[in-house]
């Protein structure tokens, strides 16, 4: 945001990109949820599930010091392999984010922000080679198994840059709400009128950074 007093609060964004309904394309949101549950960070770190924002990613990168993007990538490796890229890799197309849908948009957003003077100082990508990005297929075992390592990698990148990020003594239970196959023939009505409204279980992740004991 705008900084009036000339003192700039460092902002770090840990961003998950991908459509959770498209199998391993949901790696980004999965990895950052794993990171949120296993690590705690200072208030200067924002954890953001951005889905598939296209050019709409720009406002979230605006004015940041460091961005770490987790996403599925194209790479000539076995599914489940983690690949770390820099911004230069992305611009030189050595890093290929999975969907043509969001691939050019990240570069364009960065170019816009750079011209406007609000680009992140550093951008890193924690990518994974997906097994299957088909609709409604859930996450492949290889990608699921790699996700705690992706969380560790994100944490490592932050710690290397002297950013406050510590492993939780008691990890939270990750909430991969989109993987639940919770279908039914009927639901129970709420008996108590004062009961708080029911929605999906994802509410625990509402305010990133808050503790979840």
């Amino acid at each position: 945001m705008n900084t009036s007093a000339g003192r700039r609060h460092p902002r770090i964004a840990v961003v998950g990109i991908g459509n959770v309904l498209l199998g391993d394309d949901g790696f980004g949101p999965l990895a950052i949820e794993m990171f949120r549950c296993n690590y705690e960070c200072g208030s200067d770190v924002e954890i953001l599930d951005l889905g598939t924002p296209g050019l709409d990613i720009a406002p979230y990168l605006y004015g940041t010091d460091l961005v770490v993007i987790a996403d599925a990538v194209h790479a000539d490796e076995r599914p489940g392999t983690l690949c770390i890229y820099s911004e230069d890799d992305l611009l030189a197309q050595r890093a290929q984010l999975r969907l043509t849908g969001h691939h050019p948009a990240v570069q364009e957003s960065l170019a816009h922000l750079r011209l406007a003077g609000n680009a992140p100082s550093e951008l890193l990508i924690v990518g994974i080679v997906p097994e299957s990005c088909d609709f409604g297929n859930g996450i492949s075992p290889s990608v699921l198994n790699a996700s705690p390592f992706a969380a560790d990698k994100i944490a490592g990148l932050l710690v290397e840059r002297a950013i406050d990020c510590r492993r939780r003594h008691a990890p939270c239970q990750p909430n991969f709400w989109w993987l639940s196959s919770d279908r039914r023939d009927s639901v129970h009505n709420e008996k108590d009128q004062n009961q708080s409204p029911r929605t999906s279980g994802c509410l625990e992740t509402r305010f990133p950074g808050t503790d979840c004991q």
Partner: protein
Amino acid sequence: MARVSIDPVTRIEGHLRIDVEVDGGTVQKAWASCTMWRGIETILLGRDAREGWVFAQRFCGVCTTVHAMASVRAVEDALQLDVPANAQYIRNLILIGHALHDHIVHFYHLSALDWVDITTIPQADPARAASIADGVSIWPGNSRRNLEQVQNKVKGLVASGQLGIFSHGYWGHPAMRLSPEMNLILFAHYLQAIEFQRKSCQVVGILGGKTPHIQNLAVGGVMNAINLNSLATMNMDRLGTLQSLLQDLVPFVQQAYFVDACLLAASYPEWFRYGRGVANYLAVPDLPVDAKATQFDLPGGVIMGGNLGSVRPIENWRDGAIRAAIAEDVTHAWYVGEGAQQPWKGKTDPNYTDFQGDGKYTWVKAPRYNGHPMQVGPLANILVGYQSGHGLTRKWTDDALKRIAAVHGPTLRPEDLQSTMGRYLARAIRSAMLSDLALQHLQLLTANILKGDDTIYNPPQFPQHQIAGVGLHEAPRGSLSHWVVIDKGAFSNYQAVVPTTWNASPRDEKDVPGPYESSLLANPVADPAKPLEVLRTVHSFDPCMACACHTLDASGREIAQVKVL
């Protein structure tokens, strides 16, 4: 006769292919084909109706909140469940925040470079540009100093010989006609726009708990606990933050975006003659101002045959005619079945045949309103509002038309907006109007809370028998409807009729084309290898954007590849 195939036109979600036959420099025939199917509605079958919105907002990465909103409204409609006034206002503010974001991105980042040639910016005289801009707007970002800074950035870019993401524009195309000064003004706002996108995201984030995927909805209301004495809830502090964000955002929309759209319209008057297409319009009422949703701040209605006087108002969401009128035809779409199906009975069984111009050629169904194709979007919104005597629509439309005439543009009537440029202008008019409404709805919310009303939620009760409902929303790209059938609290059918389905509709069983297809007819195409004019009309609907166009000759051989910004 040249056959031009632009595939994909879409950059964001879903893939769009446009094929046109060009003869004598104009388009003779056009096809719109969506080349990607996800059958995403099927993921909702059997799920708890209270949770549908969480999945629905993942339909699209850009229009997240709109699907969440249509989904809860559909279930509430089926239950005939009212939501409290506070919930209406909070939802409305989220929808406005999202819409402003979307319209700003569309005008500047998705389509401005169809009209603005950035390679002329180094020749601009910044003092003259500042004086032009000052003559039409009080926007503070137009200072000579600001414009000089932007010019220097562009000079650096051009001198480096590496335009990067801008290297594939149609620079120097004969249809690019703005002066270097105008190009500089618009590109300066293009860069400034990012800061205001951010502010509109923050509005959505404060109310929705998270953005781009909001977390505060519930069937029956919202979950924004209201307590003026608590730090953790909706309190005067948060309301104040919203107020100050809007006070920053509104001037950009009304003094920069709106004015730029008027300048663009005045500079390209011939584009009010192209791109009319389907002249039947549908807009649904939105921004309810009371708990029972009897009064709306955005009027809905139907206009047929381009005759604005024929407007039939849609008074509210329970309007019986709209429920009976909408059906989807799959004659030319890759689905099993023939003829039109009412969405509650709609099926989504794929039947892929490859692209067959006279047969099936798209994944988009053909929605029809009493058998007619309809155009949806800000233009429909504005025409319906203007003709219904809606105060804010009239205020901003009249202002726009006056501004265009004042800078030596054409003298236009509201009916002249039925065109490619009219769609751009209508989107800016709608944005200016929504900016006023954002401040009004924040006042409504604040006043209601101060009155002592802290109700946010009416709990749903699901009956044991089957119920059906439709959730309507006038989204940034036009009328959106989610149609649900619920059995004992779980979805047994779910169909979304989205704005792009209306506009990108293929031909129907009577071979009548949809809005994209018919709007392209008679469009000029100066150079089939650079189909800029086709893109201007397609982009005027705000579909997802093009990243690469493959231009093919009739034999299907690629004759040129043009990347589009």
